Every structure is written in structure tokens, then in C-alpha cells.
């Protein structure tokens, strides 16, 4: 079966090509009603049209802006909270129930509350993206600090490390793989926050776009925007996975 060990990227592209082909054929052969699933050719046409008209660009920009602010905030707050919780046990214990709640509960249900607080539109979406990703990053950061290999700490102490040394020269670098892992997981959640936030009450953005066209039953336009979301999701996840892999050698493996 050695022929199948092709590079995953090639296989991925091939797989998608096959599926697109099957999709297009199924519609042309009349097996499936294009009203429900549209066709790759129509979707492609829509995409190029919206790209030319600037509509795609506008939606992308809005969604990306919301994502950047929400996710960026959650990185800053999340790493800070995680680091503080690692340093001060009291903070860890105090934050624990709230983080657990934020992490496990279906937070999107809080959407209407955000609407009450921030109104419809961009701030609510940002708040949602932030709330969804921040607990993940905080938890991973905390985990990273707490799971520093004790052998490394012992070695550093043996060579006379002060507590500041232990923080800056051992704990911080050692926690990087876990922090990046948390960042990767947080991206998916932030993205979801943006899309869902836009689904309900925005006036622009990719999520708004799919909701709008969904309401008009314009399947082709819907799928076009959806395809963009899928591509973004895949790209960002792969991107961070690659980053994670690069720092993987920092994990202590003996």
C-alpha cells in the first residue's frame, strides 16, 4: 500500500477534487436538486462575482476584524490569568470554578445577554469570540506552568537558581508548547464565536452573510460564504498545528 503514503496535502487536494467532481456531476445528471446543494460551478461563479464587487472582501474584513480583536484580547487576558493562577495558588483556586463553568457550559446561550449589554453588532460578536476562547487559553497556560518537568526545576535549583531564575529561565520556556496548544484550540472557539455572533445580529461579515442568504433561500450564495468559512477554519488550524509542531522539540522527551 506504499502508493497511498502520498503527502497528505496532495491526498487532500485529490480527495476534494474527486468530491467536487462528484457533486457537480450529481447535479448535472439530475440526481440531486441544485436548489438544496447548488453546484461547484455556480458557487465558483458567485465567489468570483462577490470578490470582484468587493462584497467578499468587505465581509472577510469585518469578520476578520472581529476575530482579531476578540481572539487577541483572549490571548492577552488568558495568558495573564493562567500565569497568575500558576503563580498564586489562591488565584488558581478562586478562578477555578469560573473557568470550569466558562469552559464547559454552552456559552453561546449568553448571546442575548451580550445583546442587552452591547447591542446588536460588532461589540457583541467580539465579546462572544473573547468569552469562548479565553478559558481555553487560560487553562492551557495554567497547565503549562504547572506541568513543568520537575527534573528541570531540580537541576536549576542545583545550580543555584533563584525563584526569579526558575520563572524566567525554566518555567516560561518550558510552558511554551502547552500555551501554543491552547492558542490553537482557542482559535477554533473564537472563530465559532464570530460566526455564530454574526449569524444572529450583525449587518456584515461571513456569518451574517450565510444567515442572510439562508433566510432568502439563496443556496448558492450561502454555500459560497460557507466555503470561505471552511477554508479559513482549515487554514488557521493547520497553521497553528504547524507552529505547534515546530515547538514540539521543546517538550522534554527522554
Amino acid at each position, binding site marked *: 500500500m506504499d502508493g497511498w503514503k502520498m503527502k497528505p496535502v496532495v*491526498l487532500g487536494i485529490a480527495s476534494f477534487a474527486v468530491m467536487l467532481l462528484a457533486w457537480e456531476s450529481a447535479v448535472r445528471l439530475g440526481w440531486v436538486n441544485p436548489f438544496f446543494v447548488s453546484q461547484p460551478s455556480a458557487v465558483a461563479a458567485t465567489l468570483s462575482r462577490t470578490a470582484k464587487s468587493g462584497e467578499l472582501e468587505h465581509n472577510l474584513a469585518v469578520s476578520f476584524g472581529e476575530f482579531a480583536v476578540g481572539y487577541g484580547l483572549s490571548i492577552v487576558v488568558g495568558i495573564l490569568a493562567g500565569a497568575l493562577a500558576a503563580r498564586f495558588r489562591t488565584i488558581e*483556586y*478562586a478562578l477555578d470554578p469560573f473557568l470550569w463553568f466558562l469552559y464547559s457550559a454552552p456559552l453561546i446561550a449568553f448571546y442575548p445577554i451580550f445583546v*442587552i449589554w452591547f447591542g446588536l453588532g460588532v461589540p457583541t460578536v467580539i465579546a462572544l469570540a473573547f468569552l469562548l476562547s479565553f478559558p481555553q487559553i487560560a487553562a492551557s497556560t495554567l497547565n503549562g506552568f504547572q506541568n513543568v518537568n520537575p527534573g528541570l526545576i531540580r537541576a536549576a535549583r542545583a545550580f543555584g537558581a533563584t525563584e526569579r531564575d526558575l520563572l524566567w529561565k525554566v518555567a516560561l520556556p518550558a510552558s511554551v508548547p502547552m500555551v501554543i496548544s491552547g492558542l490553537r484550540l482557542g482559535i477554533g472557539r473564537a472563530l465559532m464565536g464570530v460566526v455564530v455572533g454574526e449569524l444572529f445580529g450583525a449587518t456584515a461579515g461571513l456569518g451574517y452573510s450565510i444567515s442572510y442568504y439562508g433566510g432568502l433561500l439563496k*443556496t448558492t450564495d450561502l454555500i459560497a460564504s460557507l466555503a470561505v*468559512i471552511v477554508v479559513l477554519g482549515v487554514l488557521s488550524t493547520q497553521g497553528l498545528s504547524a507552529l505547534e509542531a515546530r515547538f514540539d522539540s521543546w517538550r522534554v522527551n527522554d
Partner: protein
Amino acid sequence: MKLTRSIYLTAHNATSRLCAQRTLISTLAVAAFLAVWELAPRTGAVDATFTSQPSRVIAAGWDIVTSGGFLNDVSVSLAEFAIGFGLAIAIGVPVGLVLGRFPFLRNLLDPPIMAIYATPHLALLPIIVVWLGIGMQSKIAVAFVGGVIPILVNTTAGVRGLERSWIVAARSFCASSWDVFVKVILPGSLPSITLGIRLGLSRAVLGVVVGEMYQSQAGLGNKVMRYGSEFRTDYLLFYVLLISVFGLAATTAVRVFEEKLWTAGK
């Protein structure tokens, strides 16, 4: 991060002390939060319309529970979740096992599956509503899609992660393929399967709730949106908390089950 402790003093030696301390501080933190939540509006620092108060939420809760429609909403949401997630397990586990067993199929289907995994499954809501309408079917479908992918992916990973040597050992004892499946592959991949179920569970709950919030005629999410648009924060919060509690309870239940599995395995 008590880095200055002697290295050999493991965390164990202070376990019971730490455990009590942890519960105490956590409880105090929550209590403090509740107190601030209740008292802040009274002092006029915050408008109760925006944040409500624990007392009001409880009162609203009482009103809701004792009113007629509540049971209907709960049963609708629960049914959507149960059917959707049940289907996710019923399909996700077998397909995951098959994919784990046959590398060719896995390589073929991996890219689209990973693409779906990387996408926020809730983005599929509008198209699912186009296909299935605003009734219960669309919520079941979203719950299914949300839950099936993690279950499938983790089941496959579980099968792949099995030590080859176990399977070889079983074969050396003349075990049939069925035996190998039941006695080695299934138990061996069970931890991964339960992990997938736990991950899929929260996604399924989310699917039902958001689906109901988006377009529905009944259910808890439906009420959330309604009260939200009416600015009735106390009623809204009750439903939100109810949903959260359910999500938490379900996740915890699976966790407990997972742990039982681990200790039984030892």
C-alpha cells in the same frame, strides 16, 4: 507553582490539606461573586435590567417551572439532543472503527473529515435549516453533525493507537478476527471513544441550543431568544443557567464514567 519546595516533597503529602483549602477558596470566590451580583444593583451601581440579581432569577425560575409550557420546552430540547447525539454515537463509533481498521478508507476520507472538524459546526445551521426546515429535524441534524465528528475522529485514533503487539499476541493465541475485535480492539480503544463522546457532547448541546435560538418554534433556546429580545433579563438568565447546568452535568457524567473506566482497567 511552589518552586521553592524541596523537590522530593511530592504534591501528595499535602493532598488532604490542599484539597480542603481548594474547596474553601473556590466556594468563597463563588459566594463573593453571588453577593456582589445581588448587592450591586441595590446600591444603584448597576442597573438590574442589565444584570438581574440572583434573587430575581430564582423568582423567575419558580414562575417558569410552575407554569405550563416549561415541561414542553424541556422535552423538546432533550429529545432533539438525545436523538441527535444518540445518532452521532450510533454512527460515529462504528464508522470510526471501520476507518481505523482500513487505512485506505481513512486516507481517503480524512481530508474532508478534518475540514469539517476545523469548521465551526454551527456555521452549518443556515444550510441545514434550508434543507430541513425550522422544526425539530434541523436541530437534531446540527446536534448530530456537531457530535459525530469528534466521536469518529477519536474512535479512529483509538483504534490506530492500539499497540500492535496486543493484536499480534491475541492472534498468536489463535484468536479469530471477531475475538480480536471484541477482546482487544474494543476495550483498547474505549478510552479514546469516551473522550470523543465527551468532546462531542458539548458540541451537540451547543448545536441544539443555538439551533433553537436561530430558528425554532419551541425549546429552551427558543425561550432564551424570546426573553432576550424582551429585555427580561431574569427570565433569560434562568434559562441560560439551566442550559449551562445541563451541559455541565452531562459533561461531568461522562467524565465520571471515564474515570470509572480507568480505575476498572487497573
